[in-house]
């Protein structure tokens, strides 16, 4: 991939390159960042400045907080919640997030909710309808449908997929 090769050419070691992100094995100084930016710009790439990537981080952590803490804020509108919390127009937040992450804020929110559902299913302390209520789904059916869409599995199937170390593969 272009970015990986170019970074290597100018003396950096990228060890993980995905769409939108590069992980380097070293810390970057301001002049390093500048060098990288200038170099990548010649290929039409741009290093997203810290302010924007910080904002993306804030969007993600706000959503994670919203989903994983038991609070009534889940009942409010996601766009209103984020724009008031982060003091930015939601259109701007949405566009920034989509540009960098390659997916929408709404999809990220759904993904986090499903993560939470998985966690609650495994802990096995709440019934499916209690989980649906906690995460503000209108019904168990709604939760199940969304779960299946995201994971390809039904919630009940998911509860049974753990593998047991003591059973060899052919007895699973």
């Amino acid at each position: 991939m272009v970015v990986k090769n170019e970074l290597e050419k100018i003396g950096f070691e990228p060890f993980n390159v995905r769409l939108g992100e590069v992980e380097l094995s070293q810390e970057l100084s301001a002049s390093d960042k500048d060098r990288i930016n200038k170099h990548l710009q010649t290929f039409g790439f741009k290093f997203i400045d810290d302010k924007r990537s910080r904002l993306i981080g804030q969007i993600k952590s706000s959503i994670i907080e919203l989903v994983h803490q038991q609070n009534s804020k889940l009942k409010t509108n996601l766009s209103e919640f984020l724009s008031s919390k982060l003091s930015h127009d939601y259109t701007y937040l949405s566009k920034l997030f989509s540009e960098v992450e390659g997916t929408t804020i709404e999809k990220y929110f759904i993904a986090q909710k499903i993560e939470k559902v998985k966690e609650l299913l495994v802990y096995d302390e709440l019934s499916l309808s209690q989980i649906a209520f906690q995460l503000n789904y209108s019904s168990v059916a709604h939760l199940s449908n969304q779960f299946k869409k995201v994971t390809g599995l039904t919630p009940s199937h998911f509860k049974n997929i753990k593998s047991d170390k003591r059973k060899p593969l052919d007895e699973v």
Partner: protein
Amino acid sequence: MIGQTLYVSNMVCGRCVSVVAEVLRKVNIPFVSIQLGEVELLGPMNQMNREKLSLKLGLHGFVLLDHENTLMIERVKESILEIINDNSAVGKTSYAQLIAEKFHLDRQQISALFESVKCISLKKYGDLQKVEHVKECLINESLTIQQIAYKLGYRNIHHLSNQFREITGMTPARFRSLKMFDGSL
């Protein structure tokens, strides 16, 4: 990829990822990344560390896959990529079925193992890989969306569009315009 990839089953959510990270740190095994079911190590791991890790993970209910099962998961992942790149197989039968036939194994066993590691179905994993592939093609400006659909074995542009939107929330055209306008990675 540097180092080794370990597969761990029964990691179901973000909290599990944190627990596994903590275990790795305690056992002093450096890692590059952790996702559900997979840990990418910085370097190779010796047998003693492997056993220590396996034990500690086991205490939390996680299972470090042995060599045989690790090989199986890697074969499944590779096979899915092969199937995606070979249009003729697409749509006729399930990934699980194709892979079971290829390796002469039980379809149910393969699905069960894969699901316990990745927490999603084989089909969903395949769809996600396909969409990533579509994204890469979209960023590379030379193909039209129609051509991408054809290249990746979709029945038609609507089929591609629907799957893409289902997974990313955006139409392929919107994704492409966002990426092109800004020029960001």
